[in-house]
């Protein structure tokens, strides 16, 4: 099973790079959706079977895989934009940075003490790498929608780490966190719609009327 989980995690990292590298918003939304689905499946791979596990998996898959992508997709369609026009940082440099951060996170994870049974998992590095990619997207993209995507990727990174400590995290808290994420993204979706109505664009570099001069 371990190897399977690791392969999935590699897939997750790959998706990070896709969402870093692509300019087509719908595509990256889909990619993140896939990432969500994978994350939904992962617990099943590392934990023994239990109904609560099934429930979790189902919830995660529906929320991350379908509900949120739907929300964002609607926002994109209503704003009728196809692609992230000119990001603050070009795609190639972003990818390179992403690679660098991934490498760094592997190094960082190596320096942290871990359970022997987790030693040869990729969980920790993958989670940190995903976190970093999310951060990269947040800081380099111009469109509000891609910033939400960045936020989602970041959340996914956190979620991957959460997989390691299912027994420490009670269901209720797990669910609460998910709910918050869902509602948060939902509100963000609404706000995005408002932005596109107000500014007839999702370009956050237009949102600079509030500043000190």
């Amino acid at each position, binding site marked *: 099973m371990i190897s399977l989980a690791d392969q999935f995690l590699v897939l997750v990292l790959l998706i990070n790079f896709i969402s870093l590298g692509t300019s087509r918003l719908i595509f990256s939304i889909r990619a993140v959706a896939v990432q969500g689905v994978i994350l939904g499946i992962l617990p099943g791979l590392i934990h023994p079977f239990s109904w609560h596990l099934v429930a979790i998996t189902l919830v995660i898959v529906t929320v991350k895989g379908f509900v949120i992508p739907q929300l964002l997709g609607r926002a994109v369609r209503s704003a009728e934009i196809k692609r992230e026009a000119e990001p*603050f940082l070009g795609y190639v440099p972003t990818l390179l940075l992403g690679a660098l951060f991934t490498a760094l996170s592997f190094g960082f994870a190596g320096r942290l003490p871990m359970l022997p049974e987790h030693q040869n998992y990729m969980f920790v590095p993958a989670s940190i790498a995903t976190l970093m990619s999310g*951060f990269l997207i*947040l*800081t*380099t*993209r*111009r469109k509000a929608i891609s*910033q939400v995507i960045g936020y989602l990727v970041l959340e996914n990174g956190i979620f991957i780490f959460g997989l390691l400590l299912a027994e420490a995290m009670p269901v209720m808290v797990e669910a609460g966190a998910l709910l918050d994420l869902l509602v948060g993204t939902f509100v963000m979706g609404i706000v995005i719609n408002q932005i596109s109505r107000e500014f007839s664009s999702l370009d*956050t*570099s237009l*949102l*600079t*009327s*509030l*500043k*000190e*001069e």
Partner: protein
Amino acid sequence: MHFVLQGAFDPALVAIGAALVIGLAGIPGLFIRQPGPGQILSAVVTVLSATAGVPAVLQLLFSKTSTTYMLQWGLPFGLCELVIDPLSAFFLIPVFLVTAAGSIFAIGYWPAAEHSTNERGLTFFYGLLASSMAILLMARNGVFFIMVWEVMALSSYFLLVTEHEKAEVRRAGIVYLIATHFGTAALLVYFSLLAAQTGSFQLPVAGSLSAISPSATIVALAAIIGFGAKAGIMPLHVWLPSAHANAPSHVSAVMSGVMLKMGLYGIFRTLTYFHDPPLLWGGILTLCGITSALLGIAFAVAQRDLKRLLACSSIENIGIITTCLGVALLGVSSHNNTLIYLGMAGALLHVLNHSFFKTLLFLGSGAVIHAAGTREMNLMGGLGKSMPRVALLFLVGAVAICGIPPLNGFISEFILYLGLFLQLKADSLIYLVFLAPVLALVGGLAVIAFTKLYGSVFLGTPRCPDAVTHHEAGMTMQMPMIFFAVLCLFIGIAPQLALHLVSPAIAVCYPLLQLTELPAEYGVILGKISLSGVLLLSAVVIVSLFWRWRLGRAPVTSATTWGCGYQRGTARMQYGASSFSELAVSVFTGIIRQRIDRPVVNGLFPGTARCSDHPSETILERIIEPLFTMIGISFAFLRRLQHGLVHVYMMYIFATLFILMLWAN
């Protein structure tokens, strides 16, 4: 909250009660609908409590023991002690006298009927200021001290901005508020470090601390900054001229007559803590003092605004007091009882004297402004005829503040001179005597400043057209002035009595030194002074009688002033305030800076042109304001960091994360 009374009923209770009542005096007025009664009520209450307070305070001054009142308050800073020892009692005398006089003066000067918008607030904060000052002198808990101190500062600020619709007043207010807050910041450091040394927020007892530790130096420095900013010692005086000039006159009287003294009280109090002050402290104090005295009076000479001139002379007098204090401190360091005694006596006596004649002068200036409707001396003149009584009273104040016999100003300066001269006998610090000529110069400048003031305001003929509106001040305005004029003359004629007032206070400050024979010795000398004072007055009487006798024997006619051949002299041709000081300013240029607007006059028939001079606030305008502008510019540059780009904000977050990570490992 409950009182812990120790000992039976005593005058201290009366004094505390009086202070509290004065604080509440203004409150009824806030709720009385029609203007007037509230003001009169508060005046009556203030005067009554003052009349109750002064005897109590005097009794405390001469009593050997002082009661301690502990107030159990909810704040976590230890007990809140109230003590009135002779030093506090001594400073309480002017507090009660001046505030009472001011409240009477206000009835005539700031009638509620004419100032219905701001009279209530004025009366209320006036009472608050008065009582906060009184309680400040009793406070023995550092935190309580600061709280009362701030109440004093804030209430005086609100009094200052009574006419806040005027831009000038607002500006003066802001400068004052910032200055006083700066001082308070220093005091926070001061009390914290004291607490660090003593382990509690109670003020240390006299001579209990050693000045050797480095923190003691910081304590002293903080005290000089914090209290000096309130007292107006140079270079912390920047707020003073504009504040005193723009406040209502009776408020200026209280501010200058009493509030500045609170700062000095703090310094007095601080110096008592240490039994072994290094020479450096005394040196610094003396230097600050003499500088303030010289520069203060030099600025005063250049002023053209009546109240600004008085304010600058306050700086001078504070400087003289500080000099006395520094000299006394040097005496402590060099174990020279004579120097200690004469320095302290001069300082304390001048505190009293200054509060008397400066109040007299500010009240007088209030009466003048009330009559002339302006503070610009170049527009006044000839008020001596329309308001003869005020003119006489003002003359007393002017002569007194110049330190001229036979009035009280001379006495305190005389004591300082005596101390300096006696230093010639001492084996150390002999060069102190060089202060004497400087003081003499200060005296000379004071004479210039006040002849200028008196001449251009009261003498000659009116310069401004609306002189017809001039009127003698009402009785409510005159009575306080008469009171203080009498006090000035009394202390001037009977100085040896004044010496008895100060001795107990000195004994509190320096319990270690025996003050048995010293007062008697100097009492004799002061007796001689009073003798010559009497002689002088009698000489005046004799000469005037002789003159009257001669005057009766020959015809007395009156004519216009001899214009040296020019027949059409007009009022505007008189020597004005600015022209009077022009020569002195030109001699002392460099110390005194002023901007002179000279229009170019050319052509055969030049049009009308005005030449005017504007004395400049050197330190404020040349140093502090530019500094603020510079800081403002650099801040404006830094403010670009808040540029509104959300993704860069994100970067801030992650940068912080990384930095902390690196720091953590």
